[in-house]
C-alpha cells in the first residue's frame, strides 16, 4: 500500500495466483476502505514480475496511475501504482531487489534544548541592549518593554505554530529545534540589518539599504526553509520553493503595504532618517555646492509628477 507521495504505508504478502483484493473477509488482501468493493479486483501473474489486473465490476472502478481514466483490465509492472477506492498499491515479485538501508544521521546539535535555551538568552539580551540604546526617557522605556513583550509573545507563537505543523505532519513536534531556528534566525536578521544600516550610514550609500532589505528577505526565506525541513519529509526542492514563495509574499506584500500606507499621507517626506554615532562615519562628505547641484534630479522628478 502506497501513500500519496509514494511512501510505503503497509505491505501484504500474496501466496497464490490469481489473487483477489476487496473489502470482504474472503479476500486474499483485505482493504478497510469504504470506497472499495467487497471484491474489487483480481490479479494474475502473467510472467515473473508482470501482472494482469481485472476490475470485478466495482462501482468506483480501477485506474493505473498517472492516468485518471477507469480501466476494466490492465497489465502492470513492479513500478506501476494502481488506485482503487482511496487506496493505492503496487505489486512486486519476491525477487524484487530493494535498495540499501539509509544511515541514521546524528541529530544536529541545534536540535537539543540546551542550544535552544542559549539562543533564547542571547536573543533576549539583544532586545534588552536594543531597548537600552533606544529608550532614554521613562515613557519610552514602558513602550520598549511592551514592544519586547510583543516580540517575545510573537516568537513563542511562531515556534508553537511550527511545532504544531511538525506534529501534524506526522512525526515529532521538534519544539527545541524550531525554537533554536527561530531564535538564531531573529539574531541573524538583527545582526544583518543593523550592520548594513551602519555600513549604509558610514559609506553614505542608499543602495546598501536596498541590499539590506533584499538580504533580510533571503534570510527570512532561509529561516522558513529550516523550519520546513524540520517539519516535513518532502524533498529539499519542494521546501526551497515553498520557503522562497513565503519570503517573497511576506516581504513583497509588506513593502507594498508600507508604500500604500505611505501614499496615504500626501505630505510624506521619504528619505533616510538614519543617524549613527560620528565614529561610524567613513565618508568625508560632499560640498554644499555639489549637494545643491544634485537637487536637479528632484526638480526633474517633481516636474514629471506635476505633468501627470
Amino acid at each position: 500500500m502506497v501513500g500519496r507521495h509514494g511512501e510505503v504505508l503497509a505491505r501484504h504478502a500474496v501466496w497464490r495466483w490469481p489473487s483477489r483484493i476487496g473489502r470482504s473477509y474472503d479476500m486474499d488482501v483485505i482493504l478497510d476502505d469504504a470506497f472499495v468493493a467487497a471484491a474489487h479486483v483480481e490479479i494474475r501473474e502473467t510472467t515473473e514480475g508482470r501482472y494482469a489486473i481485472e476490475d470485478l465490476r466495482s462501482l468506483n472502478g480501477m485506474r493505473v496511475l498517472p492516468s485518471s481514466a477507469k480501466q476494466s483490465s490492465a497489465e502492470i509492472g513492479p513500478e506501476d501504482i494502481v488506485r482503487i477506492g482511496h487506496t493505492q498499491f503496487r505489486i512486486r515479485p519476491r525477487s524484487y531487489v530493494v535498495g540499501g538501508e539509509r544511515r541514521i544521521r546524528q541529530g544536529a546539535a541545534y536540535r537539543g534544548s540546551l542550544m535552544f535555551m542559549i539562543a533564547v538568552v542571547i536573543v533576549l539580551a539583544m532586545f534588552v541592549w536594543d531597548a537600552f540604546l533606544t529608550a532614554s526617557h521613562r515613557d519610552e522605556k514602558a513602550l520598549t518593554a511592551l514592544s519586547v513583550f510583543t516580540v517575545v509573545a510573537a516568537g513563542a507563537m511562531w515556534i508553537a505554530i511550527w511545532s504544531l505543523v511538525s506534529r501534524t505532519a506526522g512525526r515529532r513536534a521538534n519544539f527545541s529545534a524550531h525554537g533554536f531556528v527561530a531564535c538564531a534566525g531573529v539574531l541573524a536578521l538583527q545582526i544583518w540589518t543593523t550592520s548594513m544600516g551602519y555600513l549604509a550610514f558610514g559609506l553614505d550609500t542608499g543602495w546598501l539599504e536596498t541590499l539590506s532589505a533584499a538580504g533580510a528577505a533571503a534570510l527570512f526565506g532561509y529561516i522558513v526553509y529550516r523550519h520546513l525541513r524540520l517539519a516535513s519529509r518532502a524533498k529539499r526542492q519542494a521546501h526551497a520553493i515553498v520557503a522562497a514563495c513565503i519570503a517573497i509574499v511576506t516581504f513583497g506584500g509588506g513593502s507594498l503595504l508600507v508604500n500604500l500606507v505611505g501614499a496615504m499621507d500626501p505630505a510624506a517626506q521619504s528619505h533616510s532618517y538614519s543617524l549613527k554615532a560620528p565614529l561610524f562615519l567613513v565618508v568625508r562628505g560632499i560640498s554644499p555646492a555639489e549637494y545643491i547641484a544634485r537637487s536637479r534630479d528632484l526638480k526633474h522628478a517633481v516636474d514629471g509628477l506635476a505633468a501627470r
Partner: protein
Amino acid sequence: MSFRARLLHLAVALLCAPALAQEPEPELSLQTHALFERIRDSVAQIRVLLGTSDTHAATGSGFAVGDGLIVTNYHVIADKALEPDVYRLEFVLPDGRRGPLQIVALDVVNDLAVVKGDTGPARALALRSRPLSKGDRGFSLGYPLGQGLTVVEGIYNGLSEELYYERIHFTGAINSGMSGGPAVDSAGRVFGVNVATHRRGQLVSFLVPASYAQKLLERARSDEAPPPRNFSGAVGAQLRSHDRALQKSLEGPLPTQQLGPLVVPARMGAFMQCAAGTERERERPYDVNSYFCYMRSAVYVDPKLQTGTVVFRHRVLRSQELGPLRFAHVQETKFRDSVSSDYTSRRHHTEFVCQDRIVALDGVRAKVAQCLRRYKLFEGLYDMTLKVATLGDSSLALHSELQMDGVSYEHAMRLSQRFLEAIRWNQ
C-alpha cells in the same frame, strides 16, 4: 505657517452679554450715526455660492467705488477665482437689492479684488489718499458672522512693522464676514480694507491700506482686455512676483548668530519673527534648545493653501549622560520632527521627492536631507524643505531646518546653499 486669522474662516462663538447701560457721548454718537447713514448703502455683502444652489460657501463684505465696481478681499472670492465652474458670486445691498458679480482684477499678495455687478445707484465711496495719523479714529464696516451691516469703531495705529506687506494696525473688533468691508475716517473716506485679525490678540486687526485698492482700481479701469474666466494664471504670476520680491529681500550675506561652538543663520529681515525656547524635562537625559524664525505674512491662495513664506528652525541637542550610541538614537528620533507646512493638498501639490547625503559643512560633517514638491496649478513654484543634522560630536548636535513655500526652484536652491554654507562649527 500662518498666524493670521482669516476673518472669513474664523469660527467664533457669539457671547450675548447684556449691554451695560452707559451714558453715551452725545456728540460722537450723532457723528457716527450720520456717517453710518451716509455710507451704509455703499457696503455690500459678498456671497460665494456653490453651483446653482442658494447655499453660501462663504460670505464677506465689499464696498462700491463707482461704475458698478466693488472692492473686496481676494480671500473672499478666491474660490470663484480658481474654480469658476464650481462657484458663483452674488452681492446683497442693505436695501435688499442683489445680483451676480464678475471678478475684474486681483491683487493676491495684498489680498484685494475688484468685482463688478449691477449695483444700480449705490453711492461710490471715495478713497483717502493720505494715511491717517496714529491715534486717529476710524470706523470699520461689514457683515460680521451673518449679522446685518455693522459699524465698528477703532483706532488707527500706523503700519504693522512685522508683516512682509504693508498692513494698517487697527485696534477694533473686526470679525469673520467683515473681510473686504471698508474702514473709513470720520469724513467717510476709505483709508483701509478689512482683512484680518490676530488670532491670539484682542482687537488687534489689520487693514490693507487704501492706496493698494486705488492702484488695483486704476489697473482694473485701464485694462482693455476682458477679464479671464479662470484667474489661476494671474494668481500664479502674482505668486511668482511675490517670490522675486522675497528673494530680493533675502539678498546679501545671511546674518548669523552664535550658539555655543556653532554659528548658524539668524533672522533674515524685519519681516521675520523669531522665538527661542528650551525643552527640558525631568528624567530625560538630554535637552533641546530651539530657535525658530518665521514670517507672519503668508499669501492666502485658497482655503487649502497659504504660501510664500520662509521659515527656519535650529535645535541644539545636548546630553552629558548618554553615550554615543544612545545619543545617536535621540538624534534619529528628533530628525523626524519637522516644521513642515500646515498646507498640503493633492489639488495643489505633488508628492515630495527627497535626497539625502553626508555634506561637509564648515568644521563639521552633517546629514542633509532635502525634499521638493511642485505646485500643480501654478507653474514654476515649489515647496522646499532642507534638514541638517550635524555629526561632529557624540554629545552635541545641531538640527537645522529651512522651509520655503511657494518659491522658484532657483530661489530655493540659492538660499539652501547659502544656509548650508553659513553653518559653522568652531572646534
